[in-house]
């Protein structure tokens, strides 16, 4: 069956999530070869936030992210081969090998940068929204960050300024209940994160981040409001990281998360749920799913081959790009 059949609009959300999942599973598998020599934070289990939000954006809208950025980069249309090449430290990587997994960029796709200092890109994204307003570009900025980032002072300074100037930005908080091994309850008092954003004067939504359709709908409404001058928007999306904080493996044997919570969240797999939704609507056949998987696998195989066969950066390149010219 041709690719177009499994990429109809009804299938688009499923396909994008499945693609991110399979890409990250491939990264996890090949990480053991010790050829991707950089820290790597996988978003397996959290694909719906990236896909749902970016599905509500236009191509010209911009996205910023942090350390766990593969999904955001890919969902916004970031080049897959250049991302894999970056993880392998190749000269064809999106940062020419300077960044690795924690530093991604594809400006042509509107993915403007991700960096691993928690909160680092938050004010930068607000600055981009400010520029969009001052330059009358009609562009909306989407900024992804975690529940841990909500504790950084700079986030609150940034929300304050964004609200003051009614800037066109979506603050997207992926609340997966943990920062590394530390539970939200050990870091923040009992009160909703989105409530604080509302107190800063942002319009907020609070929803299941593993329901891709709900995320897309909420993001579409928020984007619409931001674009029409109603100011900054805040989405709190509840989700769950399946793998270890950093690296390819599962780390639940360490005992920092309850097995019940883990099981409950695994049962709420965003991809499984979207498949069930489509099947229930008679919009997805086994053949279509099979073809989707096969197409994705082919793309991944080619991307890895291309990325790995590219050269490592020449030594002297280390000195480039410190200043203009």
């Amino acid at each position, binding site marked *: 069956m041709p690719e177009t059949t499994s990429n109809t609009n009804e299938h688009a959300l499923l396909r994008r999530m499945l693609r991110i999942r399979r890409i990250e599973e491939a990264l996890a598998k090949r990480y053991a070869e010790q050829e991707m020599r950089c820290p790597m934070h996988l978003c397996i289990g959290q694909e719906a936030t990236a896909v749902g939000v970016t599905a509500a954006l236009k191509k010209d809208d911009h996205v910023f992210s942090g350390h766990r950025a593969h999904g955001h980069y890919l969902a916004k249309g970031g080049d897959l081969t250049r991302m894999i090449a970056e993880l392998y430290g190749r000269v064809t990587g999106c940062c020419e*090998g300077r960044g*690795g997994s924690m530093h991604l960029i594809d400006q042509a796709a509107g993915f403007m940068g991700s960096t691993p200092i928690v909160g680092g890109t938050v004010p930068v994204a607000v600055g981009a929204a400010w520029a969009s307003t001052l330059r009358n570009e009609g562009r909306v900025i989407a900024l992804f960050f975690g529940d841990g980032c909500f504790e950084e002072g700079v986030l609150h300074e940034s929300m304050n300024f964004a609200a003051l100037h009614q800037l066109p930005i979506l603050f997207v908080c992926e609340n997966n209940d943990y920062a590394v*091994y530390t539970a939200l309850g050990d*870091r923040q008092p009992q009160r909703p994160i989105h409530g604080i954003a509302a107190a800063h004067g942002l319009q907020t939504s609070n929803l299941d981040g593993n329901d891709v359709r709900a995320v897309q709908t909420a993001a579409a409404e928020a984007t619409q409001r931001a674009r029409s001058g109603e100011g900054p928007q805040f989405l709190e999306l509840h989700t769950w990281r399946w793998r270890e904080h950093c690296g390819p493996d599962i780390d639940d044997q360490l005992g920092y998360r309850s097995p019940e919570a883990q099981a409950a969240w695994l049962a709420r797999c965003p991809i499984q749920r979207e498949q069930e939704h489509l099947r229930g609507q008679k919009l997805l056949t086994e053949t279509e799913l099979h073809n989707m998987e096969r197409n994705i696998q082919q793309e991944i195989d080619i991307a890895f081959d291309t990325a790995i066969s590219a050269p*490592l950066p020449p030594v002297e390149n280390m000195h480039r790009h410190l200043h203009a010219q």
Partner: protein
Amino acid sequence: MPSKSSLKAEQTTNSREQSGAEALNDALALCLERDPSTLLIGEGVPDPMGIFGTTTGLRDRFGAERVLDMPLSENGLTGICIGAAISGLRPIMVHQRIDFALLAMDQLVNNAAKWRYMFAGQASVPLVVRCIVGRGWGQGPQHAQSLQSLFAHIPGLKVVMPVFPDDAKGMLCAAVADDDPVIFIEHRWIHPVRGEVPDGYFETPLGKARVRREGRHITIAAFSFMTIEALHAARALANLGIEAEVIDMRSVSPLDVPTVLRSVAKTGHLLVADTGHQSFGVAGELISRVVRQGFDHLTAAPVSVTLPDLPCPTSHVWAAHYYPTAVDIAEQALRQCGISIGEAEHRELEKLLPTTPPDIPNPDYRGPF
């Protein structure tokens, strides 16, 4: 809890072999045990990884009130710890990367460093900030910086960088006992370094360098992990007839210039090796002081071996070119001593080439950090 005086009197004649991480863990336990006003706080302190093993088990022993995690709020929490410190507590903060301490620069520079001075000595800030320097496995531009010169530039901050486990333990105890703020910088690669460590509580004075190897031809003054590289280099140099004196500086501020001057008076040659960048750095500062105070001792212009003036690039190909090693030190030392690199020198230098990839600390290492 034993009384302060009984612990002070405790003899430290026995010793054992330990890793740097184990020695730091012991030091923290002893400080927490000795003084109930001591607190240990940082992102990940009580978690299963225990800050690379340096805080493992401490919450169980000393309780959740004194050994605790913190929100991702580096600047706010630094200020909160300063407030606790001027109010009778002795907080020890930990940052898993020194890069995260950059978020706390306002509190460290404007408050911690100046509180005593600007209030005419009426209050003090007994705060220790442990900062770990990342290296290897593609830590990259924002997770591998070595920022000692930035902190050392600020009057009022003490900045120390132990290398060997005995110093890590004794200097951490001294830092906690110190009534002023101390930035305690641990290179990630000193955690696995093993050595003999005296048992029990003891303090190693801050601001004192330690001669790790004696020699009469050249002085190699090294900071942090570069001390290990310098000792490797010294062994190769010895095979070529050059006796290098290796000084582990241990402390950046105060800077122990007298120990270096004494050595240079003997050798006439100075090489300074630092883990930081070249420009406006610690190596340049030490050289400048030696030149100003000991110009007559020098028979050649001093040299330095440092990082280049570039952010740390991630790709592993660059690790060998970004990080200077024993080879660079030995090569520069030979030049300094006026020896041209011939065949014998080449052979010795080649033997120094690292046998493990330069982006990992040891051959058994499996990524990621």
